[in-house]
């Protein structure tokens, strides 16, 4: 009898996912199970003992249900987003042809892909439920209560993974057929993470825990989130915690909530299987090719800024190539979004009013985001592959002109953004004066411009030809660590250089640090740019 097709696909998916560890594939499951057993039996109980008192106090508080609902909702969304972002980053439909040409039902492909990935998601689920069990054990829950809680978690997460897998398959078919679609997919992959980051920031810094101690706020959250299946397990969870060993006390809630959750899972499973035909299709969807419009005022200005002649034309071409990729714009939007969130949740008026340095704190915080922004813009220099670089290498004085154009392009994008976000962050402080606003903007602009210079040099010196390459990741880490390193070097360096350092007022001291850091940043940036340009001439 032939093997079920979904099993064939699942085995294949598992093989693809474990191709990097092919040599240990045969005993990988045993290794994982062994490690997870050690985690559940020994590590998790010791780890949770650090904050067990706070956790139990929370569980028995009036805000418990709303809190658990929020946590479950967050985890649900996170687990749903994983397969979606994974697919959007690399939405390709070429492999679908193999499935569609073979005698296999689309629902089998969908189920197979889901099950093939499941062992890896199961690791996450075990880590979370293992920690949870450890936290609940001091309460004296009986075995049935524990099993039901674990089952609630497993069903909730399975539903999230399944929904994520179905949406991912639909999006892959929608976006994966064209270059434009793949670009939209990559752009979305980054942007959809922002609301989740906002929620996490809100939980961490936004005072949500404190707000929930207000019965009305807690009740509102309970009512709203209670509508979502992700939260249905929360009442059972808290009910068991309040009545250890007495399952009958919350028997009705257990039956309705857990039963509802299982029904929800069965329904989404059925709906997903129904949607599979749409998710696996090679019918072309878009027939309008993107057309370029004649250059408007923006590109004419860019050309003028580039001197109008060849350099200007090259600069415009680079701008168009960069700006017409939604992925690049979404990266910029992502960083700006993070900076806004830092201002809302971390720095903002509250922090700036508390400290003498209040007017500079926002700049100190957000300046560490500038290198990442610079890396997203200037780090793109080699990502289109060697062939793209060879276009410039084979033209007379092409390399020099290319480096100049990329540098100007980086500055023209990063510097205005840096100026705007610095102005916004600084203006949120009540201590801000016009002079301090201008000073901060000047620092922000100079630091960001130095970051672009350094990043461009670094990525030319150590070219990364793909975002997935180790080089790209190591370059990103270098950019971040150099930026932090320069700040710390300036901070501690000045303590040694200036004899009466601590007699100077705090704000002036910090301005000196930033000035020193900016100067160092420019020196390092120019050195790297020189070395990078030299390396570009050598690349073969």
């Amino acid at each position, binding site marked *: 009898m032939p*093997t079920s097709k979904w099993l064939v696909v699942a085995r*294949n998916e598992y*093989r*693809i996912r474990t191709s990097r560890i092919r040599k240990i594939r045969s005993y990988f499951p045993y290794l994982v199970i062994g490690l997870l057993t050690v985690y559940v039996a020994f590590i998790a109980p010791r780890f949770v003992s650090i904050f067990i008192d706070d956790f139990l106090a929370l569980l028995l508080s009036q805000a418990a249900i709303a809190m658990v609902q929020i946590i479950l909702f967050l985890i649900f969304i996170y687990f749903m987003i994983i397969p979606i972002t994974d697919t959007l980053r690399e939405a390709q439909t070429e*492999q679908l042809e*193999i499935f*569609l*040409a*073979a005698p296999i039902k689309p629902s089998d492909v969908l189920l197979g892909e889901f099950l093939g990935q499941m062992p890896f998601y199961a690791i996450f689920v075990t880590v979370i439920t293992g920690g949870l069990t450890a936290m609940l054990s001091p309460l004296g829950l009986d075995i049935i209560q524990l099993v039901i809680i674990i089952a609630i978690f497993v069903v909730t997460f399975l539903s999230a993974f399944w929904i994520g897998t179905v949406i991912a398959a639909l999006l892959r078919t929608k976006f994966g057929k064209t270059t434009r679609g793949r670009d939209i997919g990559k752009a979305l992959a980054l942007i959809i993470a922002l609301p989740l980051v906002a929620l996490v920031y809100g939980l961490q810094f936004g005072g949500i825990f404190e707000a929930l101690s207000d019965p009305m706020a807690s009740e509102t959250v309970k009512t709203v989130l209670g509508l979502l299946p992700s939260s249905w397990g929360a009442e059972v969870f808290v009910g068991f915690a309040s009545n250890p060993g007495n399952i009958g006390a919350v028997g009705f809630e257990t039956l309705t909530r857990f039963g509802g959750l299982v029904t929800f899972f069965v329904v989404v499973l059925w709906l997903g299987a129904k949607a599979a035909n749409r998710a696996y299709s090679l*019918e072309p969807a878009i027939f309008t090719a993107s057309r370029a419009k004649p250059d408007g005022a923006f590109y004419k200005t860019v050309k003028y800024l580039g001197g109008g002649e060849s350099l200007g034309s090259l600069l415009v071409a680079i701008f168009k190539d960069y700006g017409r990729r939604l992925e690049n714009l979404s990266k910029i939007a992502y960083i700006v979004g993070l900076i806004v969130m830092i201002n809302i949740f971390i720095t903002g008026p509250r922090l700036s009013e508390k400290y003498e340095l209040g007017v500079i704190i926002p700049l100190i915080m957000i300046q560490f985001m500038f290198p990442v922004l610079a890396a997203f813009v200037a780090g793109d220099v080699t990502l289109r592959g060697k062939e793209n670089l060879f276009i410039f290498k084979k033209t007379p004085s092409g390399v020099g002109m290319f480096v100049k154009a990329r540098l100007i392009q980086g500055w023209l994008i990063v510097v205005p953004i840096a100026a705007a976000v610095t102005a916004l962050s600084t203006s949120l402080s009540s201590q801000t004066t016009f002079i301090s606003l201008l000073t901060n903007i000047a620092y922000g602009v100079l630091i960001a411009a130095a970051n672009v210079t350094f990043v461009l040099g670094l990525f030319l010196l150590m070219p990364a030809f793909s975002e997935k390459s180790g080089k790209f990741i190591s370059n990103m880490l270098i950019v971040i660590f150099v930026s932090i390193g320069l700040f710390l070097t300036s901070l501690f360096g000045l303590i040694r250089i200036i004899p009466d350092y601590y007699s100077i007022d705090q704000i002036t001291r910090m301005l000196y640090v930033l000035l020193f850091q900016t100067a160092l940043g420019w020196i390092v940036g120019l050195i790297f740019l020189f070395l990078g340009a030299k390396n570009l001439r050598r690349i073969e």
Partner: protein
Amino acid sequence: MKVVIHTDKLSKYYGKGGEIKAVDELDLEVYEGETFGLLGPNGAGKTTTVHLLNCIIKPTGGTATVNGYDILKEETNVKRATGLLAESPGLHEKLSAHEFLEFIGALYDVPRDILSERLDNLLKLFGLYDRRDYLLEGYSRGMKQKILVAAALIHDPPILLLDEPTSMLDPRAALIVKDLIKKLADSARKTIFICSHILPLVEELCDRIGIINQGRLIALGTVDEIIALTGTKTLEKAFIALTGGVEEKELLAWREHRGADF
């Protein structure tokens, strides 16, 4: 002779009101054991025809039967009866050649005992047996194409749909594929449907050819019949005469520029 592929006004239109006619009322018959070539310029509708015949996409109008099975009603049987070598398929590059062929064989329900021996034999035939455990991501384009040919053959189907079978191969590998196609047609009585714009390949292998342009079949017959039809001397000239091309005087027209002094 038994007809194994029969299309009846098979059409595939796209866009609003179906203004893009990828395949337009295609009437065609391919006989058992025949090697048939569908020739056409880029975007003529060759790949869409193969996709329709393999039930990968559904027709807008008309229908077809493949090995006696209706492409609209008996998808699974059509797929079992055909082996497809797609023009640009995405290989699972994180699999080894052996794993990939094993996967494809399982998808087509090839029994385990047969599969194991057959995939070893196919890998030996294409000179890839020693590299069977290497991941496909490390294979050259030609080697990948060989694996895809092997994948199309793994369930030993009566009909092979080959979309540009030698386009990525070096001369040596192309020769193997050409010899294999001849052997499959002559000795194994397979019906082979080749889509290509490589004229010498089609001329050498095909018993009959069809020329498709802008979705419509504009010529059908043996190579000699098509040459005679257009009053030319070679298939290349006949193809240009039927599908249009650039005239010789236009070739260097781009250099002319009023007032240019360089």
